[in-house]
């Protein structure tokens, strides 16, 4: 099993070259905000381990929100972010990118402040690689190659069934055996490839188990300290949240239209939201703790097709920037934004509140987890308000949703099994 990882190269844009950078990025697209997979600058499709990627000008329009806490707005630099989710180690991908798209990347990054003709591209990207506070992967271990192979398998089964209608009249076990024979023949003929699962890197496996066991062990040991600290913190936060300002007013129509312009071209969409965090150490620590828990749960529990009940996210992450004063959330999800937000509010509203309530202006919560996004109109305005357009977005499997990938994977598992029980065969047959 090859684990997935993420990277995010974050660097300051040279203010004099912002316009040029925007034009460069736009030149990579074949639809608004959507990368041409073979574009001349960064031909994403050539990177066989790259699931999703984006170039993003980190243009936060809400830096003035801190005035609601009596603070003067900070003059943050304008950043360029290049981020993606890959199979294997991030450094291996960055090395491949530097090797195979070096010229294009140099052209783009030359619009950044500390990048010049003599800069070592790979070392520079590694230096600017920014860790996420929490990371979510829909299906740990499913590689780009696997997703593509299984999509071909799905289509092959569909076509076979189409031209051999008799299969549809067979009991599930017989249909399974028949389809399996056909696929085996296709494999021998070289028309279908189903690569065996690659071995799990030993180092990763050890680290993963250590993390799985170690984190709860440390938490357990620290409980005598953690519990009183957490209780005090919670009481303090409860006091604070009663008077925190809500900034959920109606979003400017032009802002909404600009975002909508790059949405719903594929069955999936990208999403980026960012903003300043409420001031104070208690807030800082509590959000760090929340992201730590989310990250742990995503790593060890929610790694098989769903973040709690939400099954439409391919990859997502939270990142602190500017020394923890601001945070960014980035995701790749299926369906329209409205459906995505409804999914979240209705299914994991508590999680949404926990993850986002530290943002200035979030709809008022109760004990951090309650209320908040249940005021769905306020929440939707809040999110739209903090949303930032992505200049270039790439997805390795256009037209396929996370649920498609899961279905195809389950079909594959069935094909891999020489014999299924009656129940398993019925479930397998119901997948198509």
């Amino acid at each position, binding site marked *: 099993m090859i684990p997935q990882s993420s990277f995010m190269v974050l660097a300051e844009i040279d203010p004099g070259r912002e316009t040029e950078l925007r034009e460069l990025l736009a030149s990579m697209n074949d639809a608004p905000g*959507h990368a041409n997979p073979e574009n001349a600058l960064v031909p994403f499709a050539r990177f066989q381990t790259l699931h999703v990627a984006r170039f993003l000008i980190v243009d936060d329009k809400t830096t003035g929100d801190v005035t609601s806490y009596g603070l003067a707005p900070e003059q943050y630099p304008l950043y360029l972010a290049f981020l993606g989710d890959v199979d294997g180690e991030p450094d291996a991908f960055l090395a491949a990118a530097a090797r195979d798209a070096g010229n294009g990347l140099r052209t783009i990054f030359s619009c950044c402040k500390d990048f010049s003709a003599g800069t070592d591209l790979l070392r520079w990207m590694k230096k600017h690689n920014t860790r996420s506070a929490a990371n979510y992967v829909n299906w740990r271990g499913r590689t780009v190659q696997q997703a593509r192979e299984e999509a071909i398998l799905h289509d092959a089964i*569909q076509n076979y*069934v*189409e031209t051999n*209608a008799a*299969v*549809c*009249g*067979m*009991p*599930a076990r017989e*249909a399974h055996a028949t*389809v399996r024979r056909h696929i085996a023949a296709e494999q021998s003929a070289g028309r279908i490839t189903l690569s065996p699962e690659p071995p799990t890197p030993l180092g990763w496996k050890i680290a993963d188990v250590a993390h799985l066991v170690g984190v709860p062990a440390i938490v357990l040991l620290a409980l005598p300290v953690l519990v009183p600290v957490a209780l005090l913190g919670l009481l303090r936060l409860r006091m604070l949240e009663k008077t925190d300002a809500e900034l959920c007013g*109606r*979003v400017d*129509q032009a802002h*909404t*239209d600009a975002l*909508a*312009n790059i*949405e*719903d*071209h*594929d*069955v999936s969409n990208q999403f980026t939201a960012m903003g300043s965090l409420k001031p104070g150490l208690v807030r800082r620590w509590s959000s760090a703790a929340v992201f730590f828990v989310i990250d742990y749960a995503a790593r060890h529990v929610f790694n098989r*097709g*769903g973040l*709690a*009940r*939400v*099954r439409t996210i391919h990859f997502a992450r939270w990142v602190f920037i500017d020394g923890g004063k601001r945070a960014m959330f980035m995701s790749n999800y*299926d*369906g*329209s934004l*409205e*459906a995505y937000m*409804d*999914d979240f*509010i*209705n*299914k994991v*509203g508590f999680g949404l509140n926990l993850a986002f309530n530290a943002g200035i202006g979030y709809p008022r919560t109760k004990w951090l987890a309650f209320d908040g996004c*249940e*005021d*769905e*109109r306020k929440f939707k305005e809040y999110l739209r308000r903090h949303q930032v357009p992505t200049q270039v977005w790439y997805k390795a*499997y*256009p*037209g*396929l949703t996370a*649920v*498609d990938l899961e*279905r195809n994977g*389950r079909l594959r598992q069935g094909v891999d099994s020489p014999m299924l029980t009656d129940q398993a065969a*019925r*479930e397998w*047959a*119901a*997948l*198509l």
Partner: protein
Amino acid sequence: MRASEVEFSDVQGLVRFGFGKMTRAAYLLARIKDVAAAKAWLRTAPITTAVAMSPPPTLAIQVAFTAAGLEALGVAPSVIHQFSHEFVGGMTEPSRARRLGDLGINAPETWDWGWRATMPHLVIMFFAADQLDAFIGRSTGAGFGAAFDVVRRLSTSDLDGVEPFGFVDGVSQPVVDWQQQHRSPALGRQLDYENVVALGEFLLGYPNEYRKVTDRPILDADTSTAMLLPAVDSPDKRDLGKNGTYLVVRQLRQDVRAFWQFVGKHANGNGKDAEQLAAAFVGRALNGDPLVPIQQKPIPGIGPNPAEVRQNQFTFDEDPFGARCPFGSHVRRVNPRNADLPGHPNGLAKLAAVFGLGREGFRDDLTSSVRFHRVLRRGREYGPGISRAEALEPAPPNEAERGLHFLCLNANISRQFEFLQNAWVMNTKFSGLTGASDPLLGTRAAIRGCPSTSDFALEQEGMLRRRVAGLPQFVTVRGGAYFFLPSLRALQYFSA
């Protein structure tokens, strides 16, 4: 929030009644040519209210405005921009057209009305038990002619409760909780499908299924707003939205010949098989009966009238494989009849379900809880009826167009109508399917990465599904717009 009693005399009648006894109706799509004259006409227009009358009215007029219409009337931009984004942006905004499936031959540029020059300012709906034309004539005299240019007259026809394809229509509607007795459960707490839906889902100014009041224009209290009611959530302000709602209008042309000829061909001319396939597309039999058995346990908001029980006391829980009513069928898409959590879990199982732990079924949790996505349908058919036998014949030259003037009411267009249209009707990935949009309403336009969207799956229990490929597009959008259907007080404000 405390429930306040609804002042029916302030609500347009269409919200509460379908005006079914008034079998004649026509909708005039108009643009304002003289503001003063338009206001004068609107001030005196006899708008039928939601007050129950005995005997029921035999004539009725209703009015609703687009954002462009409010602008033309001189409503301040600061007020208009407090209406929802969808209403202000309009149905034809390009990204919205993508979400609604208004692509290819559905594209707004090709519409008969609703695109640019034919974008109406308002719709005036006339209903009559008889003598509709005389009624319209009386109501639209010289004053009307001076005030408005009629862009289109949408006529309707009475096909006796059957829509043009031949299926009994209007079988299922949500029951509006006018008394506000049925407090909506908190998120995740509704474990069984219910057909009673919060008033605030259909009328602005009242708590919705989230127990919150949907955004709408809230104005300062001064002499210009004196006729408006106070806002329930800020009592010192006036609520322009209260007792009003949004009206979605879409003209949907139905190609009845293509429909019956396609199923006929697929069934090799066997009439019974063709009817069965057509029923699978719709998800109900021709007479409106469901394809799944009715359940013993009553559903709040359905019955006790036996005909209603027979046609609506069901969910899809007993059909987990879609073997009786296909997942992709029209009625299963537009009302999946589910609740907040799948499978009615209790105790620890419920806790696990909330966190999505132990999920095994491939289709679990794919469809969001329907109570947040209901609409009140008020549409009517248009064009001549056609029998199945006739539909199998080739079309004569210059055949009259037929279809449905789809009208629906909802308080939140994006969460209700648009969600339904986008995530359920047009979505080629609905409920774990792929490559299939709504068999009746779907556009077959290719989308990025999905060249084919014209499939239909006939699931079978314990076997692979059968697939019907290459469905033609049976329904074409001919026009559409989002309107605000104001309260009588708001109408007074607009026409002052």
